[in-house]
C-alpha cells in the first residue's frame, strides 16, 4: 500500500527460483487468505438477504443492495459519519495548531518556568485516556456538553504528543535559518509561517493523519457522553446498530454497517498513502 520496492528488494535474492520462492509464495498466499477471509465474508454477508447469508457463505449469489440500504437508514450512518467527520476534522486541525504553537515556544523561545511547563506537558503524555475519562465525563456533563460536538472534541484539542513531535523537527532546523530570518526582519510568527512550517510539512502531514485516525477511532469516550441518538459517532453508532437490530432474520444489517463505516476511512488512507507510514511511525515519540 504505502511501500515501494526500491530499497528492500535486493537483487541477490531472486537469483534463486524454485522451491524457496514457491514456499515463500505459498506462505504469503495462505496468510493473505486468512487476512482477507473476514473482509470477504463481511462483504458477501452485507450483499445478501439475511436468510441467505449462511446457506453458502463463500459463494456470491442472491446479491442485493437492500441490506446496505437498511443499514444506512436504520443505522443512521449518514448522520454518524458526518458527526465523526466533524469531530475528527476539528480535532485534527486544532491539534495541528496547538501543537505547532506550543512546539515553537519550546523550541525557539525563552520564557520563565520553561522546565516546569515542559514537565507538565511530559506528564500528560504518560496519562492514559482511560484514567481521566471517569472524571472528564463529569466535567463535560457539568459544562452541559453531553451530546455535543464540543463534548466530543474539546478534551482532545491539544496533545503533548503532537507538541513533542513538532518540537523535535523544529529543533532540527539549522540556527542559521533563524538568524537569517532575523536579519530579514522576520519576527517569530513570520519565521514560523514562512520558514519553519514549510520545512516541517511532512511531519505535519504525518501528525494530521495520526490525529485524524485517533479521533475517528475513538470508541469509549463517545460512548460515555452520548445519550442522544443524533450525536453518536460512527463507532458508537455501530454499537447501537448492533444492539438495535437483533432481529434474527436481519442479523446482517450491522455487518453491512461495518462495511459502510470502513469505506470512508479506507478512501482517506488510499488518498493519504504517503502520510500513512509517517503517521503510524510518528507514535514512536510517544513510546
Amino acid at each position, binding site marked *: *500500500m504505502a*511501500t515501494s*520496492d526500491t*530499497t528492500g*528488494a*535486493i537483487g*541477490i*535474492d531472486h537469483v534463486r527460483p524454485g522451491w524457496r520462492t514457491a514456499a515463500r*509464495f505459498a506462505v*504469503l498466499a495462505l496468510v493473505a487468505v486468512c*487476512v482477507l*477471509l473476514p*473482509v470477504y465474508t463481511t462483504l458477501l454477508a452485507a450483499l445478501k438477504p439475511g436468510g441467505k*447469508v*449462511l446457506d453458502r*457463505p463463500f459463494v456470491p449469489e442472491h446479491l442485493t443492495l437492500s441490506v446496505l440500504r437498511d443499514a444506512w437508514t436504520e443505522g443512521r450512518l449518514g448522520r454518524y459519519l458526518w458527526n465523526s467527520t466533524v469531530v475528527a476534522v476539528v480535532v485534527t486541525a486544532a491539534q495541528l495548531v496547538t*501543537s505547532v*504553537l506550543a512546539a515553537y515556544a519550546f*523550541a525557539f*523561545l*525563552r520564557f*520563565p518556568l*520553561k522546565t516546569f*511547563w515542559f514537565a*507538565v506537558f511530559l506528564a*500528560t503524555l*504518560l*496519562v*492514559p485516556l482511560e*484514567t*481521566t*475519562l*471517569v472524571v*472528564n465525563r*463529569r*466535567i463535560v456533563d457539568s459544562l452541559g456538553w453531553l451530546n455535543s460536538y464540543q463534548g466530543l472534541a474539546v*478534551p*482532545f*484539542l*491539544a496533545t*503533548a504528543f503532537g507538541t513533542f*513531535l513538532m518540537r*523535535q523537527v523544529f529543533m532540527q*532546523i539549522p540556527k542559521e535559518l533563524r538568524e537569517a530570518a532575523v536579519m530579514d526582519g522576520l519576527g517569530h510568527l513570520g519565521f514560523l509561517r514562512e520558514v519553519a512550517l514549510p520545512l516541517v510539512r511532512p511531519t505535519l502531514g504525518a501528525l494530521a493523519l495520526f490525529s485524524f485516525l485517533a479521533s*475517528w477511532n475513538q*470508541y*469509549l469516550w463517545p*460512548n460515555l457522553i452520548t445519550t442522544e441518538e443524533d450525536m453518536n459517532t460512527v*463507532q458508537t453508532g455501530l*454499537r447501537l446498530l*448492533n444492539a438495535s437490530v437483533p432481529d*434474527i432474520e436481519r442479523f446482517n444489517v450491522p455487518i453491512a454497517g*461495518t462495511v459502510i463505516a*470502513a469505506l470512508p476511512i*479506507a478512501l482517506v*488512507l488510499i488518498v493519504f498513502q504517503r502520510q500513512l507510514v509517517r503517521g*503510524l*511511525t510518528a507514535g514512536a*515519540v510517544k*513510546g
Partner: protein
Amino acid sequence: MTVALTPVSSRRRGSGRARESLLALAMLAPSIVILVTFVLYPLGRAVFLGRQRCDAQARNCRTNGWGQYLDIAKSDEFQHALWVTVKFALLTVPVGVLLGLGLAVLADKHLRGVRFFRTVFSSTVATSVAVASLMWLFLLQPSRGVLANIDWLNSLFPVMKRPGLLNDPGTALTSVAVSSIWANLGFTFIVVTAGLQSIPRELHESAYVDGASPWRRFTDVTVPMLSPTLVFVAVVLTSRAFQAYGEIDLLTNGGPTPQDSTTTLTYLVYGSSSVARSDAGLQSGVAVLLFVVLLALSALQLRGLGRRVHYGNE
C-alpha cells in the same frame, strides 16, 4: 528521551525578553488550558476519588484513605483483571510482532504479486475497533457466525459451535486476541516494512558476499537493524492491549461467566457488567491503578527505547 532545554535562538537582546516570554505563554496557553483541564485535573481528581467509596451517583462519599488503593490492588477482581490483561498482552504482542516481521520480510522481495500482498496485509489499518470486532463477531457467533457454521471446521473443533469460541471460558480471550491481532496487522506490517526499507542494502550485500545464508542474513543483519522498529511496534501493541476496551465490549462483555475470562483492567473500569461501575470511587481507584501499571510499563519501555526518537526516516 533527552530533553534539550536550551533554546535554540536565545541570542536576543534583553529588551525583547518580556515580549518573548509573553509570546511564548500565548503560544502555550491553548495547549495548557486543554491539558490541565482535561488531563491533569481529572487525573488529580481521580486519584482523590480513588480513596473514596460513593453511591452510584457519586454522592454520599466516604473517604477511606490511601489504604483503599491497597485494598483494590489486592482484591480478587483487580488481580483477575490484571492477569487477564497481561495474558491478553502476551497473546497479542509477541504474535503481532512476529507476524508483522515475518510477513514484511517475506513480502520484501521482488516476487510476482508482492504489491498485492502488501495491500492485503496493510488493509486492516482501515478498520476501527468497532468495525473489526463486529466483523469477527459475525465470524465466530455460534449460531450465525460464518466460521462456526462450516461443518468440517466445527466437527474438527466442536467448541466453535458448542458453546462457541467467544462463549467458552477456555477460548474467549484467545478469540478476542485473534481479532485484535488481525486488526493490528495493518499497522504492524506497514511500520515493519518501512523499517526494512530503511536498512542500507550495502549491509545485506556485504553479508551476501561473505557467504552468509539467507537465514544468517536475517538474524545477523535484518533483526538487529530492525530492532528499534520492533521495539516500537511492541510498545504500541502493548499499550493497545492494556487499553483494550471496544473489542471486549462488543465481543464478550467481559464474559463468559463465571470466570469473567475477558474482563481486562479497562473493562473493569468501564464495562457494563463490571462491579466497579456502580461506584465512582472504585471506578476511579481502578482507573488510577491502571495508570500506575502503564506508568511502570512505560518506564521500562522508555529504557528499552533509550534516547532514540524515531519518526519516519529522518
